[in-house]
């Protein structure tokens, strides 16, 4: 008995000694944040739904019985009864007022809307982060000059500018990207600049300077990873804004070119016929609303997970 317990003790001691030599893994702030994010049910569910919607946009056309520009003359002859959503006719979401398959058109519209939302956010974030980080990091006169430019740009009547572009160059999807991306980076630049300024005075930046680390490496290794959290949160809240914006332009009839479409354009058409064919409004509207909700929940989850008060 005694012998046995002594053996156990020596085993324990050996195990502890082993433990002492093994390198202990630390948990970085990113890992912490990820854990916190995945504990947030609303955010995880939303992320899942966004994934589904993206899948729908990418692969939904596989299941469509019609192409998005093909007119079903039969359905057109009696849109209210034959153009109804039904599995038998193959128009899962019904048809629009021109007899085109609404399911295929929603898939197409989702592609455009998501593309606009994500791509123009990316553009905005890339320009905004670089510009803001550079401005804050260099500081002094350069900083004031760069920020004056931002102020001047944000004083421009942006809506007017977009509409003018559309009228002048015609309705091209690329123009929407450019127009939205070019203006929405302004806020991003301001936010990142503010963060960079406050980081620049942190002692660890001074410590890096004292160690002789080059300015470029300080920017890349010390500043950017520390503003990334904020950028991520802002990005997730920016995407829905972009989608709404595109929808708004399309709703005004200035967005994508027919026969291509987007959620906004579909809603616009649906509103016109909503008294006789409500589904033409409901389907695209549901997609838009659900997407916006989900992005906002994900953004909230990210913000909680990457809370700047974490330390």
């Amino acid at each position, binding site marked *: 008995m005694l012998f046995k317990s002594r053996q156990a003790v020596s085993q324990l001691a050996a195990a502890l000694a082993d433990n*002492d*030599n*093994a*390198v*202990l*893994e*630390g*948990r*970085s*702030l*990113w890992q912490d944040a990820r854990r916190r994010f995945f504990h947030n049910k609303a955010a995880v569910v939303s992320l899942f739904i966004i994934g589904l919607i993206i899948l729908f946009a990418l692969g939904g056309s596989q299941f469509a019985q019609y192409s998005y520009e093909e007119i079903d003359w039969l359905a057109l002859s009696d849109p209210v009864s034959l153009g109804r959503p039904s599995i038998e006719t193959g128009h899962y979401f019904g048809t629009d007022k021109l007899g085109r398959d609404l399911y295929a058109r929603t898939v197409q519209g989702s592609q455009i809307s998501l593309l606009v939302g994500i791509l123009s956010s990316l553009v905005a974030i890339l320009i905004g982060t670089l510009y803001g980080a550079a401005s804050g990091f260099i500081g002094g006169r350069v900083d004031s000059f760069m920020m004056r430019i931002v102020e001047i740009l944000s004083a421009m009547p942006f809506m007017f500018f977009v509409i003018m572009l559309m009228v002048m160059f015609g309705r091209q999807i690329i123009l929407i990207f450019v127009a939205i991306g070019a203006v929405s980076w302004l806020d991003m630049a301001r936010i990142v600049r503010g963060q960079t300024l406050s980081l620049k005075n*942190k*002692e*660890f930046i*001074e*410590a*890096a*300077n*004292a*160690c*002789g*680390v*080059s300015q470029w*490496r300080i920017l890349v*290794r*010390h500043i950017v*990873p*520390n503003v990334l959290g904020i950028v991520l949160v802002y990005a997730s809240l920016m995407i829905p804004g972009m989608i709404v914006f595109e929808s708004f332009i399309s709703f005004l009839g200035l967005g994508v070119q027919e026969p291509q479409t987007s959620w906004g354009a579909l809603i616009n058409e649906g509103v016109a016929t909503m008294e006789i064919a409500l589904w033409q409004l409901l389907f695209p509207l549901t997609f838009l609303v659900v997407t916006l909700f989900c992005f906002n929940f994900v953004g909230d989850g990210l913000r909680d997970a990457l809370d700047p008060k974490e*330390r």
Partner: protein
Amino acid sequence: MTNNRIMQVQDLKVHFDIQPENSWPWTKPLSLKAVDGVSLDIFEGETLGIVGESGCGKSTLARALIGMLPAREGKVAWLGQDLTQLDKRSMRAKRQELQMIFQDPLASLNPRMNIGDIIAEPLQTFFPNMPKAERKQKVQDMMAKVGLLPNLINRYPHEFSGGQCQRIGIARALILEPKLVICDEPVSALDVSIQAQVINLLMALQKEMGLSLVFIAHDLSVVRHISDRVMVMYLGNAMEVAEANELYTNPQHPYTKALMSAVPIPDPMIERNKTIELLQGDLPSPINPPSGCVFRTRCPQALAKCADYAPALQTLPDAEHQIACHLIGP
């Protein structure tokens, strides 16, 4: 401590230009005289303590010594070479010999890097071609030296206590085997019990590696414990410089006397009977310092000539004791 002088500072001035608020961009900026003409020597292997109220320019002075802040005037001779004249590149190369330990242990570590990377950063900067394994070995050796378990190398700063974070900061400063380390209030953010550990660690490492330390603090007892010599600063000027025991037992300058009278004495009988000389008034603004002796607005013994011209720092005949006051000497 040897008599080998490694740094010689002459009449160093660090001024900051301050643009008054709501002014036009072309108005002349005000000049804040954070350090206004300090001369000092640092010897090999010694610890020079710098004390003074907050705002007296001690941190600024320390940063200017290692070229982290530009000097307006004066010379900082490091092993015979004037650092203020060096271009950015050669100054960066000198950083290998001149390192710094910071006040807030946690804030001085990048929260997104693990401590292995943090301690290795100076190595990576100066020896980019060093093989990874060797670098890691060096980092772990250094961690053991400062009393951290080497298997914590992949942990992140937020997983450590304040005292441990300061050890990480020390490891980072010492990994390049510098000759001079500036310690900017390295223990004032720590608990008292931890303070002693960190101080003793610093002293042990100093002996082992032959470092010279410049130790800044406002806690006078801590400074006395670690320093060989102490410099008292007031409003950007050196008031008194002396060997630590000499300064604490035999302060000469009115300002030093006032400071010393506030240090608690561990004997209750003496402590009860002693009088604390409270200084009148506030620290004047370094933007517009008093004429003559900067201390004259608060000095209990000020003379008429104190307002006319500033006293020079002069050495007392009997000891290594320098003092800037009209009461002493000519």
